[in-house]
């Protein structure tokens, strides 16, 4: 892996970063927003924005966290626009998604049940493996708040996944 931000072609530099970080970022965004297709779009858009400001983002202490934060911010504006969508047919369009491996329904349901901020903290701490300080900076909240959110989220997830743990221990 190249050292980011120095002595390289910026495009190759970004491409290296993209290839190394894209799956982790997608997982974090997916965990936070709960919709696979939307998470892919948001993550790709966030990476495009990272490229557009690569000179700055490449010097960020945690550029993958920057991407996830940008994707989650885009999610908020996406929902504002979503209010304007009207559908004639409410049937979900799932044909294009048939080949995707299904996610563990229990895990997904447990994540979806968490409040948004707790999901974001889980996404950054667990899927991006960020420390408390970086998570706090990324979300613009105090480190103590991160700890509190993670603690509550973990307790809720433990309760929600308890039947699964029991099944696995049999």
């Amino acid at each position, binding site marked *: 892996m190249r050292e980011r931000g120095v002595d390289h072609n910026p*495009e190759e530099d*970004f*491409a290296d970063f*993209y*290839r190394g970080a*894209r*799956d982790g*970022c*997608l*997982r974090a965004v*997916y*965990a936070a927003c709960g919709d*696979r*297709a*939307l998470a*892919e*779009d*948001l*993550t*790709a*858009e966030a*990476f*495009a*924005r*990272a*490229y*557009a*400001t*690569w000179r700055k983002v490449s010097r960020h202490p945690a550029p993958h966290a920057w991407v996830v934060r940008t994707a989650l911010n885009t999610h908020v504006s*996406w929902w504002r*626009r979503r*209010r*304007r*969508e*009207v*559908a*004639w*047919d409410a*049937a979900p*369009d799932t*044909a*294009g998604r048939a080949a995707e*491996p299904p*996610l*563990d329904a229990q*895990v*997904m349901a447990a*994540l979806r049940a968490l409040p948004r901020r707790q999901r974001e903290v*889980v996404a950054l701490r*667990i*899927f991006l493996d960020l420390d408390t300080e970086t998570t706090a900076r990324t979300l613009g909240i105090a480190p103590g708040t991160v700890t509190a959110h993670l603690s509550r989220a*973990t307790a809720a*997830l*433990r309760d929600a*996944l308890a039947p*699964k*743990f029991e099944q696995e221990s049999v």
Partner: protein
Amino acid sequence: MIDQQDQDVYDELSPAFAGVRLDRDVSNVIRRGRTLRRRWKTMPALAAAGVLAFSLSLAAVTTPSHSPTRGVLVNVDEAGFSVHTDAQTGTVTVALRQLFDEAQLKAILAEAGVHTVFHTAASSRASFMPPCTWTGVHQSDANDVVGPPHVVDNEAVLTIYPSKMPAGSVLGFSLYTLTGSNGKVNGMMVTPTLLSGEPTGCVIQPSPRTNASSSAT
């Protein structure tokens, strides 16, 4: 220090997402990034020109209209749409069906006192497609002028409040007809924007995996 029980929870979450991968090609992402960069560079100049134009149009307003209606009362039912003015409140209700003649709708809305411009494009429902960006004008949120659209009997119904439109302003509609994976139109994305005047066009900035065909009326 991480509690063993907490670690069990984390160990359960990460493998559940192991198969989730982003397969999009980096060249598409870079292409989108270049587009964004170009747009950000030109945005400040356009915004400054737009603010000036909008300020001048506001300065031209001397007395607000207290009349409930700004145009004539309209009650039109066409195959593709209907437009009705409420004589008491002055609100204009528009119902859009899947296919409609935008030029005809625009003319009827103008009679009702609502000057509009339409930009239409087709998009896949699975794509993330931002509304088009109007050029040559200042644009602002139309939330006060247009109520949130809703669906009634397979029609998209919009309520417009013409009295809340500043003099000289135009209501821009970015419309996406949304198609499902079977290619069938099954929805519409309507994004109204309040414009300071007649725009010169509307530019789509496609997302990394999307292309759209479009037209402006």
